[in-house]
């Protein structure tokens, strides 16, 4: 196999990231629909053919690529097995919580696409589906928090002279975990910064996620040659 293909999995990550951004921009609204919208307004939103098409296009693309970031997370889990405590359960915890986050996003996807599927449904039902979608999209940050805390913990335990990831990765993960905590309370209010379209639950969460993935990609890319060595867990 040509050597240039050694890092295919990792190199797929920026491409999938760009596809995510594109799908995100195709969605009819940049910030989420307001939680204060009435059932009639929500039904009108999905009933508008222009919006419905964009929701469907965006969701189809997300459906295809929503698990795509797993390449990055699996690579990180493999690196975790090369850390001081690599023989223990932490790498598996990291993989499992990653899967949880992807499943919750898939559920949100599903609710939105069903909301757009039959615009002649009762407005109350469309609103319910839309609410489920936004809640599933916003509040399950527990998985991201679990992911970040597990990785931070493994990085701080990695006390060899030549650690897999620098300490900055640990601090970054702690900061990201803290930034994601308020979004778990995204269903608490319908207005203000904690509502699902508020700056804490939406912008802080989304931008932390974007920066986190870019930074973790850089960390994983810089450490890529370690993957050629056998892991300590084997």
């Amino acid at each position, binding site marked *: 196999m040509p050597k240039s293909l050694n890092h295919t999995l990792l190199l797929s990550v920026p491409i999938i990231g760009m596809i995510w951004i594109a799908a995100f921009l195709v969605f009819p609204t940049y910030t989420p629909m307001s939680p204060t919208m009435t059932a009639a307004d929500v039904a009108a939103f999905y009933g508008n053919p222009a919006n419905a098409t964009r929701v469907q296009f965006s969701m189809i693309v997300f459906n295809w690529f929503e698990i795509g970031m797993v390449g990055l997370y699996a690579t990180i889990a493999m690196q975790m097995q090369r850390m001081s405590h690599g023989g223990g*359960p932490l790498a598996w915890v990291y993989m499992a*919580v990653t899967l*949880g986050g992807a499943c919750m996003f898939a559920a949100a996807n599903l609710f939105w696409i069903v909301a757009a599927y039959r615009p002649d449904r009762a407005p109350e039902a469309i609103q319910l589906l839309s*609410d*489920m979608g936004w809640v599933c999209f916003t509040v399950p940050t*527990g998985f991201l928090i679990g992911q970040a*805390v597990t990785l931070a913990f493994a990085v701080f335990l990695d006390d060899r002279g030549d650690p897999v990831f620098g300490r900055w990765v640990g601090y970054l993960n702690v900061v990201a975990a803290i930034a994601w905590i308020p979004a*778990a309370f995204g269903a608490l209010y319908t207005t203000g910064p904690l509502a699902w379209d508020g700056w804490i639950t939406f912008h802080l969460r989304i931008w932390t996620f974007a920066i986190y993935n870019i930074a973790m990609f850089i960390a994983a890319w810089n450490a890529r040659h370690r993957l050629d060595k056998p892991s300590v867990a084997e």
Partner: protein
Amino acid sequence: MTGAVPPIPSGWFAKMAWHLRHNPKADLWVAWFSIPIAYNIMGIVYFTITHMMPPPDATKNHAQIVEFFTKFGFEIRLGFGIMLVSLAFLVWANDLIGWLIMKMDIPHVKAWGYAYMIAMCGGGFTGAYMSAFTMSVASMRPDRDPAMLEVLYDLTYISFDGTMGFFLFGSLIWTYTILADKSRLFPKWFGYTCIWNFTTEFLVSPAVIVHSGPFSWNGTIAFWIDTVVYILWQIVYVFMLYYAVKRVDPPQDRFRLKRIARLTGQLTPHPA
């Protein structure tokens, strides 16, 4: 820094820091501590904050369901927010058990361990998360069409009892491995108590059919007896895991062997 590590200090925090720094089982112990903490948060959320447990009547009419979500709306959303932050730490518990299974002495033991991890994590995602979303969405707008609220109400409690298969298989795998394990990582009697636990997972199934009586979702058998058995078993299981983590060999990798050597002062730290 050369030679042996410093002796264990006396202060509570200093002791904790020492263990994180030098204990070859530091990750296992932190995973163990996550069990009592995360399950207690879950219990407090279910029973005191959200009033989701003990479950309300399955025979409630529309007006009563609306009243339930109106009365406890804020508490429900607050409680599930707290739970959603902490729930991922139950994955630490599941994977600790899966990892301990991999240390047992039975054929194809790694497959048993992975099977356990996947079954239990799947159960957490469907059984616990689903109810958090449906309850939050229902309590966000109690002025919704009562028929919709009823759907969410049913989804909440039936998702709880209707996805027990994941836990059933998880418990079954753990029971089998404990009983078949030649190394006796867990005592055999604990394996027999696990049989109780997965039996309860069968007993909740009629709750998806009947609306009242001992097998309904708030019934004597499907809720009360099952919950008491589960909690008692959970208390036993935390102790059993404590002794198992104590007994299990530190994970076999070259860094840990060096870490142990450093504890006894036989090696300089940070070898390449």
